[in-house]
C-alpha cells in the first residue's frame, strides 16, 4: 500500500544476503545485546511490571473494541482545544492532506519528528514530488536520510550502522543538505551527536512547519504525547508556526489516567530508561506558546482491516517500543531490511501482512520469519501474543479464507508456492485417519532408510537447506511396541 519497499524480495531471499554481511551481523549483535541486558534491569526495578503489562493490554483492547466511540470523542476534544482534525482512509489520502496543508502555508520545507506513521505512508517522497523538502531531525533518521538508506529498526532506524559508517556518511553528505560536518570529525558518539546538533540547528530555528506522529492520543482531553530523547521532537513541536501530526487511529487511549501505565512501560521497554529525556504533551493550541495552527490527521491505512480480524487485531495494541526486535534471534541475524517494511522484527512480521495484505511475495513470507520461540511475547509490554498471530497468518497464507481489505470482506485464495505443504498436510491427514495405511507407510520408510537422501528433492529442498532431514528409526515405534510388549498380554506397563 505504501510507496516505500515496493517490490521487495521475500524474507528468505533478503535474509539470505543479510546473514552473510559480517559487519551488519556484528553491528546488530552488539546493539541488541547491549539493550537486552539494560531492559531486563529497568523492568526488574518495578515490582508491579506484570500488573502494568496487563493493564496496558486491557486499556488498548478496550479502546479498540470501542473505537467508534473514542475516535469521535477525540475529534471533539481536539477541535474544542483549537485543533483541526482530518481523516485519511489510506496512505494516498493522508499524503494529499498533508501536502495540501504545507502548500497552504506557502512553505517549501518542513522539519520532521521521527514518526512510524509518516514512514509507513511514504510522506517524504510524496512531499518531494510536490517540491517540498522534509528534513528528518531524529539522529538515526538523519543518518538514514543522509545515507539514502532505509530504516531497519523501529526505535533506532540506523541500528545497522556502526559509528565508523555514521562518521563517513556525515562527512560525505551533510554539505549536500546544509551545514557541512566539521573537518576533523571522528567517530566518537559525542562528536557525531554534536555534528548533528550543528547541522540541524539552523533548520529548527527557521522552520515554519513541523510534522510529527504521536505515541498516544487521549480521547477525553484531546492531548497528544510524543516521547523522545534528543530534543528534536521538542524543537519540531514548539518552534514552528504550524504543526501537522499524522497518527494511526490505534494510538488512542480513553483517559488521562491511562498515560500512567504507558509512561512507565514504554521507556523501560524501548530504551531501558526509567524515563526518556523528553516527553511533550500538548492539547490543541496554546495562546502565545508553540504552533498557533495544529492539524491532526487520523490514519486508517489498513488498521480497520486488521481490527476486523479477531486473532490478528491484537497487533494494534503495539506501542512501538521495539523490545521484540531486540530479543528476536531472527531479527538479530537477518536485520531489519529483510522484513521489507518500515515495521521490521516480530511485530513487523504480524503487522505488515495485516496492514498491506498477504498478496505480495514479501508479505506472504513474513509470517514465516520466525522460529516461534516466543521471546517477543514475553517482553511485549502490552502482551501481544506474536507467535499466535504468526501461526494464524501462516494459515491464512496457505489456506486462504476470509479477510477484510479496504473495509470489504474478501475471500483470499491460497498463496502460490505452498502446494507441496498443502499436499503434505492432506496426505498426513489421510494417513492419520487410516492406521493401516500409516503403519504400512512407516514400515516402508524404515526399511528403505539407507536410501533416504540427506537433502530433500523438489519443493522440500529449501526446507532441508538449513535443517537436517530427520533420521528414520530401523523399526517403527508401533512395531517395536508390538514386538516387546505386544499382543495384549496385559503385563506391566501394558497398553491395554
Amino acid at each position, binding site marked *: 500500500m505504501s510507496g516505500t519497499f515496493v517490490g521487495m524480495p521475500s524474507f528468505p531471499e533478503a535474509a539470505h544476503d543479510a546473514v552473510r554481511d559480517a559487519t551488519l551481523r556484528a553491528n546488530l549483535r552488539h546493539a541488541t545485546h547491549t539493550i537486552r541486558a539494560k531492559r531486563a534491569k529497568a523492568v526488574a526495578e518495578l515490582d508491579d511490571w506484570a500488573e502494568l503489562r496487563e493493564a496496558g493490554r*486491557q486499556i488498548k483492547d478496550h479502546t479498540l473494541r*470501542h473505537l467508534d466511540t473514542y475516535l469521535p470523542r477525540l475529534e471533539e476534544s481536539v477541535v474544542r482545544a483549537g485543533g483541526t482534525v482530518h481523516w485519511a482512509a489510506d496512505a494516498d489520502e493522508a499524503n494529499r492532506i498533508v501536502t495540501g496543508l504545507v502548500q497552504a502555508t506557502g512553505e517549501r520545507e518542513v522539519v520532521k519528528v521521527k514518526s512510524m506513521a509518516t514512514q509507513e505512508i511514504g510522506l517524504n517522497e510524496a512531499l518531494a514530488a510536490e517540491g517540498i523538502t522534509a528534513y528528518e531531525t531524529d*539522529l*538515526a533518521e538523519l543518518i538514514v536520510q543522509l545515507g539514502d538508506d532505509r530504516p531497519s529498526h523501529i526505535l533506532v532506524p540506523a541500528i545497522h550502522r*556502526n559509528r565508523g559508517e555514521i562518521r563517513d556518511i556525515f562527512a560525505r553528505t551533510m554539505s549536500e543538505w546544509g551545514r557541512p560536518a566539521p573537518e576533523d570529525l571522528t567517530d566518537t558518539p559525542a562528536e557525531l551527536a*554534536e555534528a548533528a546538533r550543528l547541522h540541524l540547528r539552523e533548520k529548527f530555528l527557521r522552520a515554519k512547519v513541523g510534522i510529527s506522529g504521536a505515541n498516544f492520543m487521549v480521547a477525553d*482531553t484531546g492531548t497528544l504525547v510524543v516521547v523522545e530523547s*534528543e530534543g528534536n521532537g521538542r524543537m519540531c513541536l514548539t518552534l514552528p508556526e504550524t504543526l501537522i501530526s499524522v497518527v494511526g487511529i490505534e494510538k488512542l487511549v480513553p483517559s488521562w489516567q491511562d498515560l500512567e501505565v504507558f509512561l512507565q512501560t514504554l521507556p523501560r521497554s524501548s530504551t531501558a530508561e526509567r524515563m526518556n529525556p523528553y516527553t511533550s504533551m500538548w492539547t490543541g493550541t496554546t495562546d502565545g506558546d508553540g504552533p498557533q495552527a495544529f492539524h491532526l490527521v487520523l490514519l*486508517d491505512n489498513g488498521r480497520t482491516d486488521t481490527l476486523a480480524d479477531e486473532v490478528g487485531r491484537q497487533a494494534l495494541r503495539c506501542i512501538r517500543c521495539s523490545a521484540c526486535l531486540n530479543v528476536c534471534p531472527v531479527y538479530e541475524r537477518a536485520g531489519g531490511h529483510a522484513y521489507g517494511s518500515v515495521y521490521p522484527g516480530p511485530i513487523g512480521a504480524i503487522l505488515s501482512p495485516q496492514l498491506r495484505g498477504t498478496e505480495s511475495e514479501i508479505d506472504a513470507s513474513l509470517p514465516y520469519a520466525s522460529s516461534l520461540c516466543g521471546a517477543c511475547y514475553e517482553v511485549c509490554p502490552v502482551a501481544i501474543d506474536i507467535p499466535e498471530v504468526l501461526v494464524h497468518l501462516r494459515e491464512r497464507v496457505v489456506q486462504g479464507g476470509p479477510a477484510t481489505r479496504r473495509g470489504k470482506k474478501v475471500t483470499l485464495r491460497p498463496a502460490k508456492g505452498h502446494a507441496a505443504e498443502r499436499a503434505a498436510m492432506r496426505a498426513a491427514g489421510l494417513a492419520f485417519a487410516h492406521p493401516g495405511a500409516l503403519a504400512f507407510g512407516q514400515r516402508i520408510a524404515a526399511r528403505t532408510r539407507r536410501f533416504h537422501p540427506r537433502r530433500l528433492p523438489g519443493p522440500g529442498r529449501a526446507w532441508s537447506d538449513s535443517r537436517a532431514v530427520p533420521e528414520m528409526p530401523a523399526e517403527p515405534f508401533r512395531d517395536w511396541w508390538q514386538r516387546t510388549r505386544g499382543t495384549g498380554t496385559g503385563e506391566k506397563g501394558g497398553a491395554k
Partner: protein
Amino acid sequence: MSSRDVILNRVRRALVGGPDGAPDLDAAVDRSYLVEHGARSVEETVDLLAENLADYRAIVHRTDLDGLAELLARLLAERGARSVVVPPGLPSGWLEGADPVRVHDLEASTAQDLDAVDSVVTGCAVAVAETGTLVLDGSPDQGRRRITLVPDHHICVVRVPDQVVSSVPQALRRLDPARPLTWISGPSATSDIELDRVEGVHGPRTLEVVLVTGSPEGHGC
C-alpha cells in the same frame, strides 16, 4: 461519503459481534498496579529524586530559600553565562545578585534571539522521584516551552518537598492536561549510535537542578 464516515463505518463493521452500549473503562481495566514503588519518608523521596536526576547526568544542588539567590548567581558565573532568559513570573529575588544580562521572553522574540542566550532559570510544576523527572507546565515561573529548549544551559528550581511526588501516577494527578507539558529527565540524550546512551543533542546539554527547601508559598501544586 466523507473519509470520516468511511473509517467509522469500517470500524463498526470490524466490531460486529462485539460489546454494545457505552464503554465502561473502569470495569475493563484492572488497576491493581502500584501507585508508588516502595515506602519512603518525605526526606527519602527527595533523596531518591536527587539520586535519579544525577543518574541521568543532571547536576543536583541543594540549598534553602535564603541561599538560593547566591547559589544561582554562583552557578551562572561558573558557567560563564553572559545572558540569562527570565520567565515572566520568576520570583524577583531569585536572580538578585546574578551578573548576566536578563533577557525577557517577549511575544516577538524569535528562536534565533533565544539561540544567542546562554542560560535559562525556571521553576517547575512537579518533580517525580522514581524516574528523576521534572515537569514544566508553562506557568509564569517557567515560561513558554521554547525558552527551556533553545539555550544550552537550564537551571531548574524545585521546591522540596512540596513539588515532589514519588511516581508517574501521582504526577499525572497533579497536572492539568490543558496546559502544554514538558517532562524532562536529564539533559538531552540519544541512544541512536549503537543503542548506547550519549548525552547532548538538541536540547540543553547541561541541566542543573536546585532543590530548595523552606518555600514560603507552596506554589504550583
